[in-house]
């Protein structure tokens, strides 16, 4: 179980190599890599081109939130290895923002837990995006769709 919040980029190949090294019980690895999109489509008619963004976070709380989300995934699925790396600071279109990787004996648990981790990370970890557009800076608003995605995993 590893959680990192960092300004620097990450190398997906190296990260996956390290995550699985020495663990032969892993039969499947599900991986999500989030990138900065060049075009950000807003709700309604209006569109803005996003050239770059700055990700702000809450040092200390962010790491703790990610550790708790990761622990919840381990309670729900039989997982052998998990990794969450989230960047902060200024990122340009095409840059990697986030890496979530999940190793499990079987693929179903790996796929499900990976989706769960990304959904909860988006709604429960303290990060905020400030986008740079030709019209100026703009704080990104929360998306109802993200809340709905995260709510899928609520225990009834």
């Amino acid at each position: 179980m590893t959680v990192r919040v960092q300004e620097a980029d990450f190398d997906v190949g190296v990260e996956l190599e390290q995550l699985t090294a020495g663990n032969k019980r892993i039969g499947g690895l599900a991986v999500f890599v989030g990138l900065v999109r060049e075009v950000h489509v807003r709700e309604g008619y209006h569109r803005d081109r996003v050239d770059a963004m700055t990700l702000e976070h809450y040092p200390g709380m962010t790491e703790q939130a990610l550790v708790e989300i990761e622990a919840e995934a381990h309670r729900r699925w039989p997982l052998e290895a998990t990794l969450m790396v989230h960047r902060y600071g200024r990122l340009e279109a095409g840059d990697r923002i986030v890496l979530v990787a999940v190793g499990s004996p079987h693929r179903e648990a790996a796929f499900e837990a990976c989706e769960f981790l990304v959904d909860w990370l988006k709604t429960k970890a303290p990060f905020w995006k400030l986008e740079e557009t030709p019209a100026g800076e703009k704080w990104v608003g929360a998306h109802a769709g993200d809340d709905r995605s995260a709510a899928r995993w609520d225990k009834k």
Partner: protein
Amino acid sequence: MKVRYFAWMKRTVGVAEEEVTPPAEVTTVGELVAWLRHRSPGHAEALADGAAFGAAVDKRTATFGAKLAGAQEVAFFPPFTGG
């Protein structure tokens, strides 16, 4: 206690953090919000009734009903938009 603001709330309030000493009758996060609103027009705008923001007490998400007893750091922030 230390109060911290993030994202657009930091800009609206005008500071990223401040030391405050609320009176004894301020015992919950919600009461702290109401008390902080009187500090400046920026505070009043950022912490307005109906503004979409959440809170954390000592770096853990907290409801407005959460008790402040012994809190070192209270933070206010807009909904999260990471990932």
